[in-house]
């Protein structure tokens, strides 16, 4: 048996991170890359990595809430595209940059609400519902643009994607705000407690008076909203919207959540882990680029590292549970 003090410390670690293993993996990858290439450990490159990771990380923050309730949201990649083309379209139609930004976020939110309602009121499995909206949203993006990109060169509109506050790029600032907010919500509010309760045991939560449908629907709405926000940021960065943006991004977001130690069964995990997971994925891509690894090998390498990280996490968990 561990001495009492040590045990409280482990508990505190779990409370913020869900698990320590992802952080260890992240540090190991960073150490390895700094040894392999001098170009990795520069402030310029590090800020660059975080900025590149920020889009996936923001989507993954919403995904964390959904997965903690025991659900899944496959539609986020397509929502990103719909948000992108709607915001660019609104801008192209002569509306103000603010209206365009709100249009993009709003369409993501609307899809998220629809996901939540069909899942909870219609009582359909989240996998099926969000698979449906995945194709619907992608289709709408294609119909809306007729398959062609829409330019969005307005400087104010592009602030979210390209701007900077001090030395920090705006996407990183948004990332920080989103993660602080989700951390606060998960750990300090009734909503957060209900999310964990539903994921831990939905029936027990319901029999304790938790409004399960409302809370679950809200997690999908938040996930949709954050996907919409990400679409707007990405459009700003690229200066144009394309209907095929974000294709497959749902898998990166899910990978970040799972890498961060959140259980796909729900009820266990947390937002800090997700941030670490998104950084692992981002740094991995960055490192492979710096090392000039053939682009076709990169997905293979990424998948292998994800599997190794999860196996390591399993081991650590199993030994700490015994």
């Amino acid at each position, binding site marked *: *048996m561990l001495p009492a003090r040590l045990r409280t410390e482990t508990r505190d670690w779990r409370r913020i991170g869900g698990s320590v293993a992802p952080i260890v993996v992240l540090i190991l990858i960073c150490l390895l890359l700094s040894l392999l290439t001098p170009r990795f450990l520069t402030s310029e490159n590090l800020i660059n990595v975080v900025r590149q990771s920020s889009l996936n990380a923001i989507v993954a923050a919403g995904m964390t809430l959904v997965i903690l309730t025991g659900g899944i949201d496959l539609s986020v990649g397509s929502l990103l595209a719909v948000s992108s083309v709607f915001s660019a379209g609104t801008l192209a139609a002569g509306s103000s940059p603010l209206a365009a930004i709100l249009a993009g976020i709003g369409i993501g939110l609307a899809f998220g609400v629809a996901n939540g309602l069909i899942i909870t009121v219609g009582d359909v499995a989240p996998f099926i519902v969000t698979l449906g909206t995945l194709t619907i949203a992608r289709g709408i993006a294609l119909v809306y643009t007729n398959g062609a990109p829409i330019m969005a060169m307005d400087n104010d509109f592009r602030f979210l994607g390209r701007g900077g506050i001090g030395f920090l790029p705006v996407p990183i600032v948004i990332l920080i705000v989103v993660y602080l907010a989700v951390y606060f919500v998960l750990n300090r509010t009734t909503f957060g407690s*209900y999310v964990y*309760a539903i994921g831990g045991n939905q029936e027990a939560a319901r*029999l304790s008076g938790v*409004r399960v449908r409302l809370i679950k629907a809200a997690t999908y709405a938040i996930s949709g909203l954050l996907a919409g926000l990400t679409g707007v940021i990405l459009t700003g960065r690229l200066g144009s919207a394309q209907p095929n943006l974000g294709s497959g991004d749902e898998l990166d977001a899910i990978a970040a959540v799972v890498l961060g130690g959140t259980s796909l069964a729900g009820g*266990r995990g947390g937002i800090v882990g997700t941030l670490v997971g998104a950084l692992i994925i981002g740094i991995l891509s960055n490192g492979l680029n710096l090392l000039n690894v053939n682009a076709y090998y990169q997905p293979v390498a990424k998948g292998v590292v994800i599997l190794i990280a999860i196996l390591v996490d399993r081991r650590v968990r199993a030994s700490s549970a015994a």
Partner: protein
Amino acid sequence: MNDLMHATGQAHPPDATAGSAASPCLLRMNQVSKRFPGVLALDRVDFEVQTGEIHALIGENGAGKSTLIKILSGAYQADSGELIFDGQHIQQPTPARMQHIGVSVIYQELNLVPYLSVARNIFLGHEPQIVQGVIDFRTMHQRSRELLNLLGIDLPPTRLVADLGIAARQLVEVAKALSRRVRLLIMDEPTAPLSEQETATLFDVVRRLRQQGVTVIYISHRLEEVFRLADRVTVLRDGRVIGTRPVEAVTRDDLVRMMVGREITEQYPKSQVQPGEVVLRVSGLPGRTDHDAELVVRAGEIVALAGLMGSGRTELARQIFGADPMPHGRIEIRGRPVRIHSTWQAIEAGIGMVPEDRKTQGLILERSVADNISLPVLSRYARAMIVRQADVRNMVRELVRAIDIRIQHIAQVVRTLSGGNQQKVILAKWLASHCDVLILDEPTRGVDVGARTEIYRVIGQLVEQGKAILLISSDLPELLGLCDRVVVVYGGRLVAQFERHAATAETIIRYASGAFAD
């Protein structure tokens, strides 16, 4: 090695009553100890089971019963001591080895595959085959029927296990053990989820097993069952064997004393509370003939819903609590009609419910004691959804002290608590909510004698606070010991009502089994 070869050589068919050596002692454990970090789970245990007997093993939660079973099943290895089965020393017991020599365990969580047929479950892993890999269904069904007949069960081998009730599933487990030529069958609290009738059927099956020469170790919390079924009984306490007795030679009180180590004088603290005003009134419920029955619970009163499993008592309770839609009936709280369509509305109306299944309905096992207790009332400790965590912690600590939940820390994960303490956590949830009406569905199921008495004490406190309590229990002595009135449910209808002094077990069973039509 030599004795391993020997033991593998003998696989007895279940009807070989004589056995090989006809030794009176089938199983013997000598000075077996097992230590886990921080606890000595078994302390030099001597335990002996005779061939062909039904041997009850009883003890409170944490007494070491499950550790003992796991050693017998090969899941754990003892730290020291000997295990002798049918005269053979078992050196390295593994699950496969123990199964091979004829030891089977039926756990509370049954090990059946729901979407396979009864026959495929019975022969899972040793299917009769036409050629390697191709199941011989004709033989399998034929042999399944034989096994089920042997047990006196009428069940088509082609039925899906998913379509069976819990009682029938248990019988399939017994048939499965029998198909593996079981010699020693260990049953872990098999009657916990069963109704009176289903229990009687299971007992018949166990007695038939004895006739077939199968030896049974029967683990239970219900002392009545020991007297109904067993030949001998062994009591464990704190990892030690307190004694083994022939059942004829002991009384209920003897066993309680051996289990607890102290006298439990007043098992059911009779409340001296005079029932006050009507708190809960549900009218328009199905009665014997029409929708005219009424369920009334007063402040400081315990009303029991008696009935067999599936009679509709749990369903009615869940409807009152808003967990399921209510087809008939109107609910009034303190004379005011209330509309309840979901559990949160019930809680706002002042109703709480301890559900029948602690682990799947009552608790979030991976969360802390504090998270579980505060869940129904969390919004009352929050403004703009932000929880005042210090207040929550204080509230939880107070309740933990008030009803004496034994934990190290309120951040402790609920899964690690004993059954009795888990049940107290659920009770604490509803104490925190200050509800007026509390529905208790099987509040002492799977809880040991000591914790049971403490739960009765908490119920007594609740009554003194003037709460209206609706109690459901399959344990008739408990039900009669606690309640002020009994309402009997049969086929979803309220068919009879008795004051406590007028209620006896016999009359309740008569109405509960539908024998009232004349």
